């Protein structure tokens, strides 16, 4: 079961990464994440946004969707980052940035969607009983 996404649209500039971080933090807090996992996920989202910013077409806006997810005993968030690409190709999974993102969430994938390059991050955490 997925809730409705929270969507951010920001200029492709690192000055806006703090917003990605703050929004991800808030969503993970609501999902009941422990602080250190929450921080990892926020860092991953901002790192993923930074990665796609490098390939953003001039003037393109970057979209970050945060979709809270709950399945079975797991809670979490799906993070989709998307921007119009200038190179027309996806980032390589062997880059340092990808390595960082991959270490912080459970799964990362990328694809081209028309002119847009997309990154999909999945983060899950066992539900902690309050």
């Amino acid at each position, binding site marked *: 079961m997925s809730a409705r996404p929270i969507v951010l649209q920001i200029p492709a500039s690192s000055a806006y990464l703090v917003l990605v971080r703050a929004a991800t933090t808030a969503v993970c*807090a609501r999902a009941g994440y422990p*602080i250190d996992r929450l921080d990892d996920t926020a860092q991953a989202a901002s790192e993923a946004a930074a990665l796609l910013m490098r390939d953003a077409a001039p003037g393109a806006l970057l979209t970050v969707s945060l979709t809270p997810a709950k399945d079975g005993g797991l809670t979490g968030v799906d993070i989709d980052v998307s921007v119009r690409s200038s190179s027309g190709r996806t980032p390589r999974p*062997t*880059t340092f940035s990808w390595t960082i993102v991959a270490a912080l969430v459970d799964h990362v994938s990328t694809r081209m969607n028309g002119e847009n390059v997309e990154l999909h991050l999945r983060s899950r955490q066992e539900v902690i009983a309050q």
Partner: protein
Amino acid sequence: MSTTPTDAESTDVITHRSGWSARDRVIERRLLTELTAMEPDDPRRRALRDQLVTMHLPLVEYLARRFRDRGESHEDLVQVGTIGLINAVDRFDVERGVEFSTFATPTIVGEIKRHFRDRGWAIRVPRRLQEMRMLLNRGTAELTQKLGRSPTVAELAEHLGVTEDEILEGLESSQAYATKSLDGSSDDDDGPSMAASLGKIDLALEGVDNRETLRPLLASLPEREQRILMLRFFQNKTQSEIAAEIGLSQMHVSRLLARTLAGLREQMLDDY
């Protein structure tokens, strides 16, 4: 932009020794002369050094007081200031002809400022947020200990008797300030530890693109930041585990990680 705690250091020098007699001054001079002349591995060095450090603790106390009301306890500031004092004692050279306190003051103040920078408070943070961050630090440590894992925002809010929104605000401000403090000039003097870790860096970067760009960037990080990065990303330790291993708070580890990655990011623009 960095309006780090004020520096009107030149006047400090006289003040802390106002209680000194002429005899104290002679003793100071004699100790420093002896220490300068000693071989680095002389067994008497330690006692001499301790004596000099004790003599100048009032200077550290005095300098630490100038940073009061900035959200750090006086004891902590004296502790980090003392590290600066010890470094100054070790590096002082009588032959340069400067007063020891003139020489030591910038080193002590430098350590204290570095402490504030590490805590992400290089720029003026509203007092309410500083207090929230201290509260968060304490609460996180207490609950981590109690639960055996990192606490959730809801648990922290309940434990500290504040709202979840306040916790979030505290977490955000913590990161925002950590990121900003990057722009400030850095006079950190704990330099990189090249030789020791190059091998580890190479191993960690196996299979990663841009190794040639990355290697010197990683190698030029301060030793502690290097270690945190390696533990988190290449040995898969959690922030809480790293915090326990290095002896910092989890929030401190989080800030250092965020800051280090942001710094690397700026220099790795072709990493796509």
